[in-house]
Structures are given as C-alpha cells and as structure tokens.
C-alpha cells in the first residue's frame, strides 16, 4: 500500500508501523473516567467494514504518527492527517 504522507508525499506502507483504531487518541480523563470507560478505550473496537480512521507510525521515515482514513474492504486511502494535529483538534493538550 502507499500512504500519502502530508509532508513527505507518497510512501510505501512498509515504512510504517500500524497501531490500530484512531480512537486510541481519546484516552479517558483519569479524573472522571469509570472502569467501563477504560475497558471500552483499551479493549472494544468498532472494527468497521468500510472507512476506518487508524494510527500509523512512520518508523522508517520522519517518526510522525499519522491518522489514516482507509477503507478496510478495498484498502483505498481517502485521507491522511498528522496525528498531532488531530489530537490537538480533539482538545488534547498536555
């Protein structure tokens, strides 16, 4: 597969390390989260058949974490974002 890196352009997916669903960015707030929230965060997945937002690490490149929107039925990639920007946009800070 080829991942179109926002900064570096098309790169072979073999350069990347796959983590999983981009929901892993949404780590529960330790102050307020219930055990159920933690269980859902760590263990439950949508596992969609279709467009999925997922985390790839550019191990063999610029060491950026990317959020890749990829179709799990066709492998078509429709969007690639810098995970750091996504995390900030979702309100994560320190």
């Amino acid at each position, binding site marked *: 597969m*080829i991942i179109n890196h926002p900064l570096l352009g098309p790169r072979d997916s073999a350069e990347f390390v796959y983590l999983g669903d981009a929901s892993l960015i949404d780590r529960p707030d330790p102050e307020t989260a219930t*055990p159920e929230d933690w269980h859902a965060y760590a263990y439950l997945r949508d596992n969609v058949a279709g467009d999925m937002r997922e985390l790839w690490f550019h*191990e063999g490149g610029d060491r950026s974490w990317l959020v890749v929107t990829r179709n799990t039925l066709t492998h078509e990639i429709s969007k690639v974002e810098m995970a*750091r*920007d996504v995390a900030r946009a979702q309100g994560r800070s320190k």
Partner: protein
Amino acid sequence: MTQINRVSGGQIDRSATFKFKFDGKSYTGHPGDTLASALLANNVRLMGRSFKYHRPRGPLTAGSEEPNAIVELGEGARKEPNTRATTAELFDGLVANSQNRWPSLAFDAMAINDRFSNFLTAGFYYKTFMWPAAFWEKLYEPIIRKAAGLGSLSMQEDPDVYDKGFRHCDLLIVGAGPAGLMAALTAARSGQQIILADEDFAFGGRLISETFSVDDAPALDWVKAAIAELSSCPNVRLMPRTTVIGAFDHGIYGAVERITDHLRNAPAGTPRQILWRIYAKQTLLTAGATERPIAFDNNDRPGIMLAGAMRAYVNRFGAAPAKRVAIFTNNDDGHRTAADLHAKGVKIASVIDTRPDAPKSYDYEVLSGAQVVNTMGRLGLTFAEVKLADGTMRTVECGALGVSGGWNPNVHLTCHQRGRPTWNTDLAAFVPGGTLPPGMRVAGAAQGIFSTQGAMQSGAQIAADMLGTQAAPSPTTEDAPTSQTPFWYVEGCSRAWLDQQNDVTVKDVKLSHQEGFRSVEHLKRYTTLGMATDQGKTSNIGGLAIMAELAGKAIPEVGTTIFRPPYTPTAIGALAGRMRGKDFHPTRLTPSHYWAKEQGAVFVEVGNWLRAQWFPRPGETHWRESVDREVRQTRASVGVCDCTTLGKIDVQGTDAATFLNKIYCNGFAKLAVGKTRYGLMLREDGIAMDDGTAGRLAEDHFVVTTTTANAVKVYQHMEFLRQCLCPDMDVQLISTTEGWAQYAVAGPNSRKLLQKIVDPEFDISNDGFPFMACANITVCGGLRARLFRISFSGELAFEIAVPSRYGDALMRRLMAEGEEFDVTPYGTEALGVMRIEKGHAAGNELNGTTTALNLGMGRMVSKAKDSIGSKLSERDGLNRADALMQIGIKPVDANDKITAGGHLMAKDGPVDAAHDQGYVTSAAFSPSLDSMIGLGFLKNGSTRVGEKMRLVSPVTNLTVDVEIVSHHFVDPEGDRVRA
C-alpha cells in the same frame, strides 16, 4: 539425431547449433528455440506424465499456460523442478529430465493408476481409507504421499543469488504484443516514464507467431521497427523475460526478471532473477489471450495441442508438431492454423469443423459439422476418430491434432484485488470486469478485442487517453471479426480431459455436480480442477461451462474462480532475495566487538546484536569455567561489560519531567539534577512493558535507558504519548543508542579503576558521586563522557559512556589500567548470573504478562499521579490475594540442578496443571552461593519464603526439591552498591 520436423522460416538462428539433453539423450536445437520447440523439431512428442493417472503427455501449448510439458531443468543443486518446456529458453548444454515417472518416461509403472481410474474418481479418498483408524498414517498416507508430487528438489542449498529492486513509472504496460507495442509507442511520445514488460524473451506477442502482414510487410519487420524506436527513447524501459506476477494495492506490482536462466554460464555473482517492486501511477494490461481446448475422449495424448500453439511452433520456431496433422476447431482460427501449416509443407490430414457452414479450402479436406470423438496412440497420437455430419464414423491418421475452442482474454491481473471478470456472450468468454485495480486499464485481446488491427488501435488509443497524449497511428493489418460460438466438449463414453495435469475429466465434473459440489469453489476443491501448476489457465472455463450446463444455469451464474497472484509460479528464492543465510537480518556490532574478537570471545545473538557471551581464557575448557571466573573476579575486584546495546533515548524540553511522570508508573518529577532513578513502564493495560533508568542531566534534559529488546518499541510508545496524547507538552525525543559506547564497570575496585581514567577535576568518590549519581565528565585528558553510578550486578558499579568511535580505545584502556586489579571483561552469561544473584528482573520476568505486583514492585505504582497503565493495573484479576509474586529458588541439595521453565508444585501431592503453583523464569549456577539458583513466580510467593516445594520439568525429565527464598541472593541490604 537430426531435427526431422524442422520447417523453413521462423525466428530461430540456424547459424548456431545448440546441443542439449533430455532424459539423457542428446539433441540439437538453435538459439531462439524453447526446450519444447527443439524437442518437437527432433520429433519428440512425449515430454511428461500427468499427476494422477501418469498418462503420457506432450505440450498442449507454446507458452506459460502449459499444463503437460513440465520437466526438471538442470542438474545438481541447480535442478529446477516443474519447469515448463514451452517457456524454457534453449541454450547450449541445457540438461532436462522428465519427472513424476518410474522407471522411465516411456515405461512408467505408476501408469497402473490409469487402469484403476474408475476407482480413483474425484474425492474417492474422502470416502475410504478410514478403517482401521491407525492405518491412515501407517499405511495409506505414506503410499499416497510417495505417489504424489511432480518434480523433486535437489535438497541442496540454492547456489544462485537473487536480487530485489524497486522501479517507478508513470505507466506500466504489461505485455508487448500488438496492443502493448502500440501503447508503448504512444506512451513513449508523451515523455513520461514508461515500463514495457513481457514474460517472453522476444517481444511481439502473437505477431511473431503469425504469418499475416502489417502495413504490407511481414509482421516481424514491424515488431523490429517498433522495438528499435522504443529502445531509442530514454523514458522507456524495456523489460523482456519479465513476468508481472501480481497487482497489489495502490499501483504496486510485483515483477520477476529472469537474468541468467537462459545462459549456460553467467558471470559469477550475477543474480539469477530479480524481483522488481514496480510503483506505477497507471497500468495498462495488454496480456493478450489464451486459447482454450475442446474436451473429447482421450484428448490428452502427446501430439494433441492447441491450434494457436501449432502456429507458434511452425511460424516462430520453425518446428512442425508432426509430419501429418489434423485440426479440430469450432472457429476460423483453426483454419488459419491449417493454412499456415500447409504453407510450410506440413500435410493436413483434414480440418474437422463443428460448424455446418465451415469455410471450404482447396488445399486440404474440411469436414463440416464433424467432431473428433476419440483418439488412439499409446505414447503419442496415431489416429483421430471423427464423427461426420451424417453420423458416420471416420478414422483420420495424424501425428498431431490441433484443437481450437476459441480464446479467453488473460484477465488474471484484473482479478488480483478480487475484482470479478464479466461474461461476454458474443465472445463466449470472460472479459475484464467493472472493478479493476485502481489505475489499471486493459486493451487488446486481454479486453476481448481479438483482431490484430483492433488490438493495436485499442492499445494506442487507451494509452493516449491515460497519458493525455496523441495515439500513435495504427498500421493496417489482419482485422477478422472475432465472434466465438461456444463449443466445450464432445459427449463421449470414455474420459475427456479438462485439467490435463491434475487428470480432471468431464466425468469428474459430472460426479461433483451429482454429489452436490456445485458452486465453482466446491467444484475446484472437490475435483482439484484448476489447482495444478498452470492454475487452470486452459481448463477452468471448460469445467465451468459443463457445471453450468448440468445446473441448467448460465456460466456467469455458476461464477468464476478468482485468479490469485502470482500470474505464473515464482521462485521462492526470488521473493527472498538477499535476506538469507547470515544476511537474513542485519547484524549490529558493539563498539568493543573487534577488541572482544581479539580476546577470543564467544558471541551470541541478542536480537540483531552480537554480544560477547563469555571470554574464555587459556586452559578453560568448559563455558562454565569462564563464566564462573568472570563472576568471581568481578565480585572480588572489578569487571567490565559492554552494555551499549541498552536503548538510550534523549528526552529534552521544559515538560520532560512531566512527560516521564506519565511514561513511568513511579514518580520522576522530583528527581534532582545529577541523579538517576530506576523506572518501570506499564502498558496501558497495566502489564509491565519495560524497565530501565532515567538520569537527569539538567532541569530539561533526561537520558532514558531501555532494555535491549524493547528499545524500538519504547521509543514508538514515547512518540505516541508525545504526539497523540500530550501534543502540547514541550518535549523532544531522539534515540542516541548508537552514538555512545557504554560500559558497566563493576566490582569493589571499579571506582579505583575509573579514577585512573576520569579526568581529575571530576570527583567520583562516594561523597562526590554517590549511588545513583550521573554527570557529564571527561576522560583520558578531555574526551567528553557520561558517567552513571548504577548497578545491575549488585556490586559497587558505574556505567561510563564515550562517543562510539572511542569505545574500542576506552575498552583497551580500561583493560590496561585494570591489570593491577586483575580486571576481567565479562559477557552476557556472567551478566545474567550476577543479575539473578541480585534478583533483578529481566526479559524472562518482564514477559508481557507480569504486573508490577508480580514483580514485587506493586508499591511503585504511584496513586498520586496519572501514568500510562496505572488505572487498568487496578483490576481485580491483576490483584488477587494469591497473585504470582517473584521469588528466589534454591535446590535443597546444593548439587541438584534447577531449570528455567520448570513448574512449582507442593512438596507432596499430585503433579498436574490443577496443582500448578508457579514457574521458574531464570536459572543459573551461582559461584557466589556455589549452587544453582533461580528466579520465578509463585502464587502469593512473598509470604512463602522458607517453604519447601517440588520443581518439576517433565519435558526435561527433572524433579527437584527446592526451597523458596528471597530473590535477593546477594547483598540483600544493598551495602555493596552504596560502598
């Protein structure tokens, strides 16, 4: 032996003669021959045996779709089983042998199977060999296994090398036939980067096997001109002998280029084949079409081949399949074959055409509305039995029979991403479907455009569309209409073959239907239709058609089996490339490696690292002698160990401390500058991930060490935290593992030794540089270095780091300066022994299932702050009263052995899984205690010190009485490390 079937013309070079051997017999051929064409020229039709019935077989085709003529090519370690004689390029000295026969090709004892074929129908083995149960492995299966298989491996290491490479292009054109060449001529003019690949050693596709003219000149002239023009274009790369084996995601194609297979002796070191990963922005498939046979009784005898293949042999290779040839066809293409053969002086016995309105000929007899119903000839065709239109029978004498059932577009690559071809009724064939791999288009015969003129036009036009350029003008040439009337098989009473290699007959398909195996996948799996080395390129469609007829469905309703990569079978060596033997993975060497080698160190693989395991001294015959000595010397005086392999990560930024507080389960915010602290990292699921130390060199600068094994994983994990969870934290990360040579200097005299090399302005006395101190210093008169006072061995110890290129010199200096202390280098074994003696956890304990609690560090998990894994580590299942706890183990009898991997059972009572209480993770002989000792996990272990238990290891036949002890075998109070 003379080439009695040679005819005039063709593209073989008669000026040179090649000698070659088949089954020990010598023959001659010419450059431009394939093994099959040369054998035919020598009047050899019998080239192989079928898989199941061991029926005699000759070539059915002239290309890579060949099911029958497969041989063992070459000898010794270079023997290559299952090689298609129809694609093997002839060279001088070629040696080939037939396979899957015994004792010889002509007299094959296994042909007995053919007599019993009636018992060996599709799926018979599922219905028998069941009683008695034990007999399957003992009796039935060995016989079946021995009989199965085609060619044999040499069982020697493949002596050839293979390369892998990468190429990039704007347009990849697959197939250099009429459509492909026109596409390339068009694309070349666009100036974009073009690759034109063809599996054949000669470009031109059908053009070089046909006699018609292009622009009133022989087609071959046009091909030569086209190749000449393309060769002159810097933006075009021509890749003959290159099979595009697969279409993978996002325009990545696998292609295998054969470099030396056609050479007698290639220069030493030349790769045999290269696997190219071609990154193509767009791809045009112009792979042509494959002719399909008609099934009739005994249609598998040597001499019976596809009519188009016959044209290839006669026109391209100048080899007639026999002196006297008959043709069986349901379309005009068969007549073209007859005409071509006739023109070469081959006697046409007759043309049998299933159509009542078959075209007439003045040159030879045409039997309209007739069918071949059977054939004769034990090792090769002698007669064909023909049923005439009026129902009367007639025997036609012939040494070869050309069969033409029409053509199937080569849609294979269009299916590699699970796109399904669609049925075209006019052509009675599958054509590329709606869902092609993105970026791919198809032209020419592969698209179902069977006229040469049409193929050329489509190739040019589609290439022009794809690149937004002008189509190269197409020449005028053969432009016959190409509708096909389907005709699949002749109803008979004997056996009519569909899959010739796997011996699947029309009867088998009928039986499959009768027993309910009616979906195309069931048909394939139950009868093995299309599972042979030719992947059913010539047989699938026939089986499909018959199943459709039986099911009363249209062919597309029955469906088609998906073609999967590779397009043709691919050498495993080519897919592996250079990654084999010692080059399987890269090797990482430590800075002291060359020095250690001089010392005669024994090395061990630790991940990709090579580390010194121990340093034998003269007179030491057993590894234990060396290891015990290294331990004793270190504990008695001083030892040095290369610990460069530990991961080192530079953590900087104003939030560096906060960051480490999140990464480690224990606190780091308050760590003073100039201090180091042990840290335990958890995964988010609360399980221990890695441990190490972090030294604070400045308010905003830490140096983190990881275990050797987890360096990469921990770095990723840290970047995840930095970029995905805490994007605004001011922290910067970079690995410095490779940059510093780091040595542990351990033992009571370690300070004295270091004082000799550390520059005097740095005070490393116990007060000036206490336990867990760290600092930037200089050594040997000004070389920048880092010093940490940390201990893995349990002794007074330091770790000193200098820039890698000075590591070798520093080790030599430490050894020289240490002589007065009887310094010893120690390897990973002694390191392991000392850490077990001290009770430090390592990889065997941090095994991905243990928690801080299990490791006896439960209290380290700070509740005062949030850190990765702290929350989920609180789950009940990880905090049971009888949770496993790390303990030490000692044999009751000091002479007894302890083994890692052993399980702990109550001293008396049953020994089984239900009574399992724990297990041993690490074991070693402790010179300090003069006994074997071990670390392990025991249910509620921390409260069971002093208990006597049984250590059992049935798989190594060991049972030992052991005592549970503290896992700090040496210096439990830690006085030494603080000395």
